[in-house]
């Protein structure tokens, strides 16, 4: 199963431990993660499900291509990093 890790910055607001969750696309994986941690969803995604403007997601170190529908494929056993973009200096 893919593993999801979160930036340290988010932990101050909502605890987001690293978890292994199922899914073949980024959207499926994050849905599975947020099913266990609903409050975290709104910290990462907009109301309409897009990735927040100043968040970034990497799958095995590669930046994702689809920030809107989160359709990037996720290989079994991949590591997904959810981080905040460096913005604002």
């Amino acid at each position, binding site marked *: 199963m893919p593993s999801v890790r979160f930036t340290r*910055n*988010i932990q101050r*607001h*909502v605890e987001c431990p690293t978890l292994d969750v199922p899914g073949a696309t980024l959207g499926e994986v994050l849905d599975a993660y947020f099913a266990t941690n609903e*409050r975290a969803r*709104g*910290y*990462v995604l*907009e*109301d*309409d499900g*897009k990735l*927040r403007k*100043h*968040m970034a997601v990497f799958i095995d170190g590669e930046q994702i291509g689809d920030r809107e529908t989160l359709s990037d494929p996720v290989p079994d056993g991949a590591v997904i990093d959810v981080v*905040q*973009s460096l*913005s*604002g200096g």
Partner: protein
Amino acid sequence: MARCHVSTRKGLFTLERGAAGWDIARASFVGDNVTLTMHDPRSRDLIAALNHGHFGVKLHRSRDGGTTWNEIAAPKYPEKPEGYTPKMPVEGVPVVDWSLKLVWALEPGGADQPGVIWCGTLPGGLFKSADGGDSWSLNRELWDDPRREQWFGGGADQPGIHSICVDPLDSQHVKVGVSCGGVWTTRDGGTQWSLTAKGMRAAFMPPEKQYEENVQDPHMVVQCRSNPDVLWVQHHNGIFKSIDGAATWTELTGISPSAFGFAVAVDPNDADSAWFVPGISDEKRCPVDGRVVVNRTRDGGKTFETITRGLPQKHAYDLVFRHALDVGRAGRTLIFGSTTGSLWVSEDAGDSWNALSSNLPPVYAVRFEQS
């Protein structure tokens, strides 16, 4: 004890009136961007709106006067209908993303509606909670009005609801102020809405559109508690007043040093008395000649006096945002805060002012606890 909540770019500061005067009694959310704080006189709850930027807009509630806080649900926009394409607004870009950008107004419902809270947001949604903020629903009637798609951003990229006036005599009668989209009124708690900005003038539009109601930019709308038919507006290009419950508006002119600004407060007990903190103009958002002043009328806007006592009169460039001036229930105590972190209090209805701080973060909102 009298209390006042000051929401700033770097935290929430609670002021208390002790024997020696007003002072900062508590700092909460230090380091976080607190855009607005509401005190609910029915439950005594506090609700603070935080904008974390990266992580979005959140609401926190305290049920012990601000000692402890818990995150509660934030308003959430519904899914867009399949294939929906927004119309172009009068200016700017359409609201493509149905997603919360900012909580810009929080107002308790009427005394007969415990638990009801209204919430105005960017990009233009009005939300209501019936359970003290545990859950929120978008007012679809206003959101689905085709004229809502015509709204456009003033200072922000997207339009927003910044003022909510719940009639103290009839809690089904609610008015909202929109930048930019005029003033809207419901008489039935939000099922039917009418656009009520007749008489407002938008100097920023071409001549033939200047009196269109849906393009107006009221920066702040306030309603007199003891005479709710009287409303005052600090508008983008002037000061307007209504004495007929927003059916018609009259522009007040000849105001020195300027009629530009964001904040306005009206005396809860005297509809003829109102306070403003002027800036130069929309192109130059700072005090005229570097002097911070308060403009006060006590005769319904026929005349204004410019008050300087206790305020800096040399090289002061403080701007006062729309929610950053408030008046207490008795109409004697006023507090306002500025973009450069100054905070002033008056306990004589604005005759004179004392600086409470010159070192706060940029102040977004000042709200007294009203009983």
